[in-house]
């Protein structure tokens, strides 16, 4: 196997065997057949020389840069990072050296040179309030920028919960009128990679899929790749046996917590959250929220900020008994009122009753 990538990798001390292993892992993680690993490796290895690498444009909108942080920090010297050597990341405000007019030039040059072929990554929501004045780049509102750049994109990746669903800015009462990418762009294939932030491996997996097959992977009803968002955190959680046994941590420092029991009672949203944290884990497979002792917040689900308290168990409702006394009192009053009506009917029937005498019968 030869190609520009293999040569680049070799220069950086990565062997062909390591590269093949990486592709096989990526393929199996995405539940693709074993042959896909090789197909991926070949597709990536034979990627054209540096000048023709697939162009990727990354637009940051109303966001916290957490998604960028997530990806840069975890992949940094690993093989995942090298995937970015295969693509040409032409615009990424946080990572690019250029600034101001130079950055804008790079954006427009990439758009013109790769019209209809570049991959657009968006992180952050798009504010519609005050004509989009809440978030502007280079004097243009995010809405205008998105429409302009999306026009020539082959596909769009909505990175993080903000781009995918509106996220935190979209939380009630949504002061900026934040919306997701899919609320605005209707005519392009969009893949949502939600999470706050999303798992880095998921984005590289999707990129590899796009490069190999030229298409987006299979998506669920929220536009998420099924390979990573196909199962709930709860179903893949290593603490699941404790849930089945009814062993729950009651506080964050009790014996149950120390024994690593289920965090359901402490508000874990694992049962309703579809993500790959439990299997792929974070920071190069080091750990993940539940393993570190905190319940899942449900960050890859729409409107998770408004989904009730983070520390309230899923089966625990708001407070239905707060009206119990009043409901019982009103019910009792209604019952008493009806009983008076009934008694009235009874006595009316009694007084209307005519006694039949022997004389009546003989008439």
């Amino acid at each position, binding site marked *: 196997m030869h190609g520009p990538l293999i040569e680049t990798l070799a220069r950086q001390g990565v062997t062909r065997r390591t590269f093949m292993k990486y592709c096989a892992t990526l393929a199996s993680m995405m539940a693709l057949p074993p042959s896909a690993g090789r197909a991926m490796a070949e597709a990536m290895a034979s990627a054209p020389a540096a000048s023709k690498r697939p162009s990727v444009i990354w637009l940051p909108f109303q966001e916290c840069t957490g998604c960028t942080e997530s990806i840069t920090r975890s992949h940094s010297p690993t093989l995942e990072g090298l995937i970015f050597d295969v693509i040409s990341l032409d615009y990424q405000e946080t990572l690019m050296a250029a600034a101001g007019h130079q950055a804008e030039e790079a954006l427009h040059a990439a758009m013109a040179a790769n019209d209809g072929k570049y991959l657009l990554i968006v992180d952050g929501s798009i504010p519609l309030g005050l004509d989009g004045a809440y978030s502007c780049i280079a004097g243009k509102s995010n809405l205008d920028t998105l429409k302009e750049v999306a026009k020539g994109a082959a596909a769009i990746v909505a990175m993080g919960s903000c781009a995918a669903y509106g996220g935190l800015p979209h939380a009630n009462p949504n002061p900026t009128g934040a919306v997701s990418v899919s609320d605005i762009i209707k005519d392009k294939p969009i893949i949502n990679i939600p999470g706050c932030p999303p798992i880095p491996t998921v984005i590289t997996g999707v990129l590899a899929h796009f490069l190999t097959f030229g298409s987006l992977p299979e998506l669920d009803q929220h536009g998420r790749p099924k390979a990573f968002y196909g199962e*709930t955190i*709860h*179903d893949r959680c290593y603490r699941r046996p404790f849930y*089945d*046994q*009814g062993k*729950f941590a009651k506080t964050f420092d009790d014996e149950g917590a120390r024994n690593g029991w289920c965090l*359901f*009672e402490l508000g874990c949203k694992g*049962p*309703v959250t*579809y993500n790959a944290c439990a299997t792929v884990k974070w920071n190069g497979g080091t750990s993940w929220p539940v393993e570190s002792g905190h319940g899942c917040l*449900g960050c890859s*689900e*729409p*409107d*998770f900020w*408004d*989904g*009730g308290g983070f520390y309230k*168990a*899923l*089966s*625990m*409702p*708001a*407070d*239905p*008994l*707060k*009206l*119990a006394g*009043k*409901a*019982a*009192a*009103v*019910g*009792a009053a*209604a*019952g*008493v009122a*009806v*009983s008076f009506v*009934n*008694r009235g009917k009874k006595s009316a029937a009694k007084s209307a009753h005519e006694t039949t005498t022997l004389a009546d019968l003989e008439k």
Partner: protein
Amino acid sequence: MNEIQLLTWVRGPGLDIAVGIFLLGVFWRLFEIYSLGRKKDLSASRSAAGASGWHTIFRRSLPPEGMVKKSPVSYIGGYTFHIGLAIVVFLFAPHILLIHSLTGLSWPGLPSQFIDLAAVVTMAAMVVVLVDRINKPVKRYLSTFGDWFTWAVTFLPVLTGWMAVQHLLLPYTTMLALHILSVEVLLVVLPFSKLFHAFTLFGSRWFNGQVNGHKGVAV
């Protein structure tokens, strides 16, 4: 409305409304029924009427002699689904958690695999008694809309709960929301339908036994 919003609604305002109507209805109906009163029976009681009442409460929980053989489906099916419902509702860990969070009362639960079995047996028994009700001409003749309706609102929470746990048909979140919603429908319907027997059953049995005892037929 997405599934998380639906779940949030059924766990929040939806449950508030359902529990409110349930409590209101229960108090209303109990006051209404017991305030009807009875005419005082001026005759001398022929046997210990009160004791007869208590005896009837117990005795009518047992099938009369020969009746199990005569209509096995009614008795065995009836017992099975009532006991099954009690197990599934009161001994499933998440249900106990809910009751604990509301009232502070708690008790040990059963393993979820056992609850799963109980749910399947309960549903099977309910289907059998329904088929029996449809097949037997007398039962069908005596059945009204109220019977079919209460069967459905009792069956749905068990079915949706089981399907949620088993991850069948719909995503867990949606199924859980539908499960809670079906329970809320049950709560709202219960005080105003035949299901109110859950509250009036023992009281009416006591009255029957007491009246019979007074007349000298202590049973």
